């Protein structure tokens, strides 16, 4: 197990401008320097030097990419299912819907569990965001957003607030109150501002910070209290559709997936992209970290899910079958990381054995696309939300 306490990026005085900032190791020719991100940007924008043309730069980039692939391949000495040979195969799983949550008037787009393992928040196309006690199937709170297509919602770690956003390009935080007379919308805080729709949001370790992903191609970290932008993350060439924070206590990274078929791993502190993976054939709809934080899975419109290993820096498994021809919309791991639950646009949920790469089970029940899927915090169940207006646990 790897504790990601130290990342390649450190703090200190920049070699160029001497200011103390988060630093990147960069290589000019073969010498190593520590530059801050501003100096890196300036360097990138310098005019073409005498011996350079656009195509020479392009070639340089391409050769580096090839070298990178070679290096990655050199260390690839074994496949996942080979290492997993010694592990017993899983028996048949019988999973049934234990709770059905009805109440949304339109497609359910997103959901998130509360840390108390039984409450969850869900959002839908008609602008309604509902907090349920999934165990009793009671609705506890309901908010109507001023916009439709609320594509992102998240529960605060303390359980005292929820965040949601969508076509309004903003992320709003609503504190949850049990006072029946209070209108929840009154205390709403508008936190994030993007230039396009909000596709995903998540609280960091506390109620005070939110990480958002948007259709404008960027992710951003915000301070809830002041609405201030703390850090922005640029690098995707198209809409960013999903994000997930690394589970490590001291981890400072998150992964995001977008319409440019890339999954990128970012450092929260410096805003730099640390790793990038581009092996999918289509938009990546959902990304989720493996419980140990050493890997992550992604689900895409190309009907496959893939597992990427962060330490080996490569894709290590593809979960696909000929009979699965519709895109995967959402993915999550079971508590041990052995099972991967994926929701598809063909109304089904497939359960994969992560290590062996085989499908363990297929679940029917939804009457329309499965749009969102999350395992509960203690791993006792998982919830799926669908365009058929219901959520199932």
């Amino acid at each position, binding site marked *: 197990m790897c504790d990601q306490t130290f990342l390649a990026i450190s703090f200190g005085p920049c070699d160029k401008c001497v200011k103390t900032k988060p630093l990147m190791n960069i290589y000019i020719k073969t010498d190593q320097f520590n530059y801050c991100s501003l100096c890196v940007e300036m360097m990138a924008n310098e005019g073409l030097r005498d011996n350079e043309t656009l195509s020479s730069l392009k070639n340089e*980039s391409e050769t580096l990419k090839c070298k990178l692939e070679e290096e990655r391949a050199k260390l690839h000495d074994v496949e996942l299912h080979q290492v997993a040979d010694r*592990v017993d195969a899983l028996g048949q799983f019988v999973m049934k819907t234990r709770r059905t949550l009805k109440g949304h008037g339109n497609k359910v787009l997103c959901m998130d569990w509360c840390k108390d393992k039984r409450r969850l928040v869900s959002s839908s196309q008609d602008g309604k965001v509902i907090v349920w006690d999934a165990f009793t199937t009671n609705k506890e709170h309901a908010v109507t957003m001023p916009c439709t297509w609320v594509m992102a919602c998240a529960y605060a770690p303390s359980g005292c607030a929820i965040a949601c956003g969508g076509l309004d390009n903003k992320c709003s935080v609503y504190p949850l109150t049990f006072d029946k007379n209070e209108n929840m919308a009154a205390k709403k805080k508008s936190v994030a501002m993007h230039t396009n729709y909000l596709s995903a949001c998540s609280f960091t370790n506390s109620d005070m910070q939110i990480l958002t992903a948007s259709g404008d191609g960027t992710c951003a970290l915000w301070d809830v209290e002041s609405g201030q932008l703390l850090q922005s993350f640029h690098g995707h060439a198209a809409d960013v559709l999903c994000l997930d924070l690394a589970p490590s206590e001291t981890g400072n990274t998150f992964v995001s997936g977008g319409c440019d078929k890339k999954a990128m791993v970012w450092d929260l502190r410096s805003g730099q992209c640390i790793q990038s993976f581009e092996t999918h054939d289509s938009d990546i709809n959902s990304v989720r970290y493996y419980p140990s934080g050493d890997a992550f899975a992604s689900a895409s419109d190309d009907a496959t899910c893939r597992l990427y*290993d962060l330490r080996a820096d490569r894709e290590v498994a593809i979960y696909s079958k000929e009979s699965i*021809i*519709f*895109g995967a919309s959402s993915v999550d791991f*079971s*508590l041990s*990381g052995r099972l991967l639950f994926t929701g598809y646009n*063909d109304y089904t949920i497939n359960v994969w054995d992560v290590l062996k790469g085989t499908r363990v089970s297929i679940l029917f029940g939804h009457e329309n696309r499965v749009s969102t899927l999350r395992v509960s915090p203690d791993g006792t169940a998982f919830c799926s939300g669908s365009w058929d207006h219901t959520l199932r646990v």
Partner: protein
Amino acid sequence: FTIIKVEALVLEMQDPDTGVKTQTQRLVITTIPHAMTGHDILEWIINRLQILDEEAQNIGNLVVQYGYIYPLQEPKNIILRPDGSLYRFQTPYFWPTQQWPAEETDYAIYLAKKNIRKKGVLEDYEKENYNILNIRLNHKWDFVIMQAKEQYRAGKERKKADRVVFEFQERAYWLVHRPPPGAPNVIDYGLDRFSDPNENQVTQKKTFDVYRREIIFNQHSLMKSRVKSSVSLGGIVKYCEQYFNHDPIMTGCLPSNPWLTDDTQFWDLNAPLSEVPTKLRVERWTFSFRELLSDPRGRQDFQLFLRKEFSGENLAFWEACEDLKYGDQSKVKEKAEEVYKTFLAPGARRWINIDGKTMDITVKGLKHPHRYVLDAAQSHIYMLMKKVSVYICCCVALPSLRLLDAMWGLNKNPCFHIYLTVKYRSDWSPVSADTD
């Protein structure tokens, strides 16, 4: 994108040799060429994709719903019946990927034509739509009616069988693109993505700074250290094995999974700050220091232990750092000052023991405090506490800590604590007894 895969499957189905069997069928008074039974289609899918009934049924239903195959009888019932019901392939002209925008005008013409043909007998929802369109397209209505009459007349000149087939096809097309109320609307794919990356790749010319950035990034990635697959994959497998018994979906949970039995005892027993932690829970704490810290009960026990050893300030400092990182941005400056006064200043009340270099960096950084200014010190203290937590398990000098009792209970092996030290060392690589 996924439509492409569906089309590939449909094309295979249509293959005269390896596809679904078709035959000419008599329907009422006309003969329809190339009809197939629902049963045959399902059989073919099951054989081709090697799957079971339920999954094949699901795929079949979707193929019909998207309009690639349409039923001859009961056109509105858009599922694939596994019996002798008849179906035909929709002509490629009408396939969803063709992306003919199903325009209102076209729909109006279709409805008008149907009106003429059926002498005013339309479905209720069609009548409604017809009226709405009449109002909306009032300015073009003459054109619509004229087109409808033209097409009707042209249709009459065809052979009866062709005409009937075309009517079926058109009807199926509109059933998909203007579904009757209550039917699933498969054309609805959600929102348009803002940027179409395919477009960009063809037309976008990357400017030099994009390439420069790529070069910097790629160089950086090259120099990054990588781990052999066998090592990192081995780590993943080991994690799965280690947590296997803790995964309620895989091995159940005691006393029972609340979702299955409606009994919340499991949650009560495992409440964040429960009196007596369960054995499984304590076992998890031994997996890694991170598990111990992230479980509130574990952290509490650890805190007690540290207090006894007079080193409680380490955990307090670590928690203060977390608070700084994730807390309110406006309070960063005052929190940083507070931390300095309490933990770092010479002679501070809860002075923490970090090496000179780290202390130097931290104090310098505190002149311009930001969220991550305490990172170096926090990492140092984290590592220190990690080693201490190894100690916690081996140290028999721990008195009333239920922590140790529970752990003894887990493993009756007399060499238990030695077993644990060995186990820990192999998990957390370079930790060895002689450092620090």
